[in-house]
C-alpha cells in the first residue's frame, strides 16, 4: 500500500477577499482622513493704522508728563491699504471713541480727555486733507491716461491704409477696436502652424455691443481659430459706443502677433 500525505492547502480566493477588504479600508481611511488635502497654517493678518499713529500726526502734543502713547488701533485693511483709488476718509477708530455717559469720568472732563479729543479732531482733519489730495491725484492720473489713449488712437488712424483719410465717420473707431483686439490677442493667442491668419468680420451696433461676427477666411490651424474667437469674446466688452450713432462693421485680419484692418 502506497503511503500518501493528506495535505490541506490554503485557499487563495479567501486571501483575495481579505486583500480586497484591506484595500477598501485603506481607501476609506485616506478619503475620510483627507490625506491628500494640504492644510495651510495661515497667520492672522496684522493691520497697522499708519495714518493714526501718534508720531505721524503733525499736531499731536508731546509733553513729557504725558503717559506713554496707546498702541495703534487695529482697523480693517480697506481703511489702511494704500489703494490707488481715492477712498473716503475712514471713520474714527473705535479705540479713540469718546467714553460712554455712564462712565463716572464723563461727568467732569479731565485734561487727558480734552487732549484725546484734540488728537481725534487733528486726525480727522489730517485724513480729510489726505483724501482730497488722493482724489485730486487720481483725477489727474485718469485725465492723463485718457489723453494718451486718444493720442494713440488718432496716430494709428492717420497711419492707416492710403484710402482712409482718417476723417470718415467711424475711421478712428476702427483703429480703437483694432487696438482693443490686439490687447486681448496677447493673452489668448495659441497656434500650431507657422503663420496662421484668419479674417473675421465684426458687426457692432451703435451702442458698442458686438452683434455678431463671421470668420470669413478661417486659418487651417483650428487652435488658432478658436483662440481668435476667444480673443473677440474677451475684447467685446471693452468696445465703446460708435461715434455718430451709426452701426459699425469691419473686416479684421488676425495674425499671431497683430491685428490688421
Amino acid at each position, binding site marked *: 500500500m502506497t*503511503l500518501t*500525505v493528506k495535505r490541506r492547502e490554503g485557499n*487563495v480566493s479567501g*486571501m483575495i477577499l481579505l486583500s480586497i477588504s484591506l*484595500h477598501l479600508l485603506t481607501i476609506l481611511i485616506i478619503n475620510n482622513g483627507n490625506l491628500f488635502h494640504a492644510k495651510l497654517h495661515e497667520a492672522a493678518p496684522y493691520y497697522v493704522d499708519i495714518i493714526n499713529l501718534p508720531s505721524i500726526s503733525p499736531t499731536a502734543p508731546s509733553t513729557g508728563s504725558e503717559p506713554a502713547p496707546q498702541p495703534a488701533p487695529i482697523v480693517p485693511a480697506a481703511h489702511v491699504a494704500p489703494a490707488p483709488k481715492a477712498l473716503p476718509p475712514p471713520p474714527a477708530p473705535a479705540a479713540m471713541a469718546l467714553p460712554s455717559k455712564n462712565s463716572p469720568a464723563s461727568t467732569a472732563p479731565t485734561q487727558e480727555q480734552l487732549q484725546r479729543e484734540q488728537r481725534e479732531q487733528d486726525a480727522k482733519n489730517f485724513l480729510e486733507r489726505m483724501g482730497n489730495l488722493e482724489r485730486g491725484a487720481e483725477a489727474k492720473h485718469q485725465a492723463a491716461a485718457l489723453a494718451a489713449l486718444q493720442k494713440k488712437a488718432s496716430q494709428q488712424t492717420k497711419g492707416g491704409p492710403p484710402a482712409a483719410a482718417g476723417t470718415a465717420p467711424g475711421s478712428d473707431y476702427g483703429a480703437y477696436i483694432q487696438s482693443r483686439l490686439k490687447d486681448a490677442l496677447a493673452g489668448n493667442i495659441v497656434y500650431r502652424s507657422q503663420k496662421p491668419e484668419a479674417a473675421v468680420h465684426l458687426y457692432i451696433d451703435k451702442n458698442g455691443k458686438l452683434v455678431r461676427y463671421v470668420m470669413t477666411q478661417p486659418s487651417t490651424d483650428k487652435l488658432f481659430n478658436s483662440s481668435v474667437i476667444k480673443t473677440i469674446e474677451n475684447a467685446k466688452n471693452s468696445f465703446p459706443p460708435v461715434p455718430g450713432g451709426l452701426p459699425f462693421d469691419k473686416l479684421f485680419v488676425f495674425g499671431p502677433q497683430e491685428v490688421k484692418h
Partner: protein
Amino acid sequence: MSLFAGTGLIVKLVLALLIYFSVVSWAIIFYKFIQVHKANKESERFLAFFWQTKRFDAVSAQIDRFANSPLSILFTEAYNELKKLGEKVEESSDPNVINTDLGGVDNIARALRRATTSEITRLEKYLTFLATTGSTAPFIGLFGTVWGIMTSFKGIGETGSASLAVVAPGIAEALIATAIGLVAAIPAVMGYNHFQNKLRVLIAEMDNFSTELLNIVQRSFAKK
C-alpha cells in the same frame, strides 16, 4: 477620491490595473506567508520527531501530522520507493536488504530529487506574479502619469492659460498613477525577496534531509 474622479479614461484604466495588481499581490503575500510559516514550523517538528523515532514505519504512521512540511513529502516518496524495491527483490535471502548492484539507492535518490523539485515548484507558485508586479507596476504608473500630463498640457494649449491654478490640478491627478504604481510595487518586491529567502532555507533543508535519508537507507538496508 476627487483626484481619482478627475482623471481621464486612460489614467483610470491604468489605476484599475494597478489596483488589481495590488489586490492580487497582497492576497499572494498573505497566502505565501501562511504557507511558508506552516512549512517551516512543521518541518522543524517533523525533523525532531524523525530523529527521535528512528523507525520508518513509526514515522510513516504519524506522517499526516506534518502534512504541510516538504520534508514529510520527501520521506513519503522515499518510503514508497523503498517498499517497492523491497517487494521486487524477492530472490534476496533477507527481504530487508536492497541489492545496491541493481541501483536500489539510485532509485530512491531519483524519487527524492523528483519530490524536491515538485515541492520547490509548489512553494514557488504565484511568486512570479509578485516579481512581475514589482518590476512592471512603477512603469505602468509612469505611463499613466505621462499620459495624464500630456492631456493636461493639451488642455493648457487649448485654453491658452499656463497659470499654476490651471496646470497644478492636472499634474496632481496624473501623479496619482505613479503613486499607486509604487504602492503596488513596493510590497510586492519586499514580499518576493522575503519569500525567496525563506524558500532558500527550505530548499537547503530538503537537500540536507535527502542526503541524510539516503545515508540511512544505504547504512540500514543496502547489501555491502
